[in-house]
């Protein structure tokens, strides 16, 4: 009995050591690992933003650059400086250069639509970021604009319900852009269910804070009992916030944007009541995943047709905490 016990114990110990020795001698290889790295090495990603130098595009580019460096890919940025013509030229020459993936940030729904189709026909995977065109390419990564518009409208209804004038102004950026048409649809979706809300103005500030300032101050003069403003981009809405502050009236301002530190600062000091944000760093991560997916899958360009909507982040006095926003100037360091 005792002998058997010892034998069993000894056997167990031998077995254990044997296993350990075995494990130390040869690790288990991941058969897919080599293929994974091979799928990316030497590949080229081209990025055509609306412009560099704004929080959104700098953020995406920095996240994409990190993955490209890690996996031995090349990231090329062609900056058209807010000119749709220059952007179209950049895409045309890229079609000839044949990068493996083309990431495009459309200035409006029309300008690049045909070029993107041509690019996919030429064998380039096309990923559209945040502002889409009429052409559905492999992937759209970005904000769910209709959802953001609905979120903004709901935010303003919370402030301008019963007991207020219910008068609301909408400040668009550029009505022909993919983002504005979506946000406006979202705002309409919600406002039609709330007859107490009166939309007294619906104007475009051309993404410019100075124009936003003069529009909103005129609207306030015109409607001294204005209750709220729905703005479509935080950078432009700084002008709207300044106009509201100068009027000295308690007018609510709900905006949307990329959740940069500027948004948190302005919510903290009360210039914005709420920002419905799409987190740029997370969008960069989504971009990276989709770049990896189209390259790994081996599918021919134009066959995937995937949509990746970014989750909404609500920035308000209630949700504010350190680290909620990201900082564009930190990226530059």
């Amino acid at each position, binding site marked *: 009995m005792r002998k058997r016990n010892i034998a069993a114990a000894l056997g167990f110990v031998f077995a254990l050591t044997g296993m350990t020795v075995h494990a130390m001698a040869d690790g288990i290889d991941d058969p897919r690992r080599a293929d994974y790295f091979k799928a990316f090495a030497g590949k080229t990603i081209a990025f055509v933003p609306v412009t560099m130098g704004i929080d959104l595009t700098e953020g995406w580019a920095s996240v994409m650059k990190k993955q490209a460096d890690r996996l031995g890919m090349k990231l090329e940025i062609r900056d058209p400086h807010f000119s749709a013509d220059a952007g179209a030229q950049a895409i045309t020459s890229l079609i000839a250069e044949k990068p493996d993936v083309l990431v495009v940030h459309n200035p409006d729904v029309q300008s690049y639509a045909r070029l993107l189709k041509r690019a996919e026909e030429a064998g380039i995977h096309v990923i559209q970021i945040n502002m889409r065109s009429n052409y559905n390419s492999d992937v759209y990564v970005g904000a769910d604009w209709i959802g953001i518009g609905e979120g903004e409208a709901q935010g303003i209804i919370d402030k301008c319900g019963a007991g207020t004038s219910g008068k609301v102004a909408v400040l668009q950026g550029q009505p022909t852009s993919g983002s504005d048409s979506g946000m406006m649809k979202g705002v309409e979706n919600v406002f039609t269910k709330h007859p107490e809300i009166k939309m007294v103005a619906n*104007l475009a500030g051309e993404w410019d804070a100075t124009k936003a300032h003069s529009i909103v101050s005129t609207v306030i003069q015109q409607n001294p009992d204005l209750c709220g403003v729905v703005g479509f981009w935080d950078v432009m809405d700084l002008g709207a*916030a300044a106009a509201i502050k100068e009027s000295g009236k308690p007018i609510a301002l709900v905006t949307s944007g990329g959740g940069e530190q500027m948004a948190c600062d302005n919510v903290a000091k009360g210039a914005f009541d709420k920002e419905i944000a799409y987190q740029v760093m997370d969008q960069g991560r989504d971009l990276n995943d989709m770049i990896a997916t189209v390259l790994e899958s081996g599918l021919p360009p134009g066959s995937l047709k995937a949509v990746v909507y970014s989750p909404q982040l609500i920035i308000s006095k209630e949700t504010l905490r350190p680290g909620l926003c990201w900082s564009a100037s930190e990226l530059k360091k």
Partner: protein
Amino acid sequence: MLGRIRSLAVSQEKIVLLTAIALFCVFSIFLNGFLTSGNLVTLVRGVATLGILGVGMAIVVIGRGVDLTIVAIYAMSAAWTLHLASLGVSIPAALLLGFLLALTVGVINGVLIAYVEIPALFATLGMASLVYGFVRFALVPLYVVYMPPSANDIAWIGGGFVWGAPTPILFFALIALLGFAFLRFTKVGRFIYAIGDNFAAARISGAPVRPTIVLQYVLSASIAYVAGMITATAVASMNTNVANSSLIYDVILVVVLGGIGLSGGRGGIRNVIVGTLLIGILLNGMTIMNIQYTLQNVIRSLILLAAIVLDSLINPRDEQTAQQGDI
């Protein structure tokens, strides 16, 4: 001869003034809330920086030049000031450095035009791209620069009130007054008219033409910097893309529309004010009417074209003005 030119200048100004008054009356009758003191203050405030830039441009155009860098200086020197402040540079130092940047560009413009003798149109067109490109490349890495909290002490420049009036309007009034006094009562101011009217004659009669030309561009650059800081502090940010926008055409427009001919030598600050007010009334009225932005552009250009067509019908070009040409 002098009487003829004067009557010509006055008529164009009068046409624009009448258009402005007509629009003003129409809006006052048909638009609720247009004719309130609050709205009128908003109206002038909305075009105050445009008017200030117009004064700078007028000083150059009267001397038969043109300054296409004015908007680039306006945007980039103010953007650099904000950027320096957010890097921790003290506010007075940041203001001084931004002003020096504007001043340097003004001096280079002046020297290129007066001494190297490059036509103003080409010199300032080239400099405008250079200023934007250089500042974005070397000084301001970001496209939109925000005003840091440390700059709250100078927020009053664009966002304050003095005796109930917004500071941008007061700056516009002050700069217009100074510009008027400079052009009308100083010797250099009179030289600018002489140079604009007939460069060779001014030179032969002993006016220091080259230094005066440099001074014009230095003045327009300095005025551009003031306008830039007003905008930057009013909306707590500066969008450097303004340097590439159509603002420069608006500036030329308020100058020319008001009756300062691009051929130089005539007009004054009063013309700038008239031109600015017309644009202000138009913009304000269309915003109240909730007119969409693309349609706003169409209406604005049509009314401006109409004013110019009316002027050329009433004041047909004669042989002399045709030969002299514009610019």
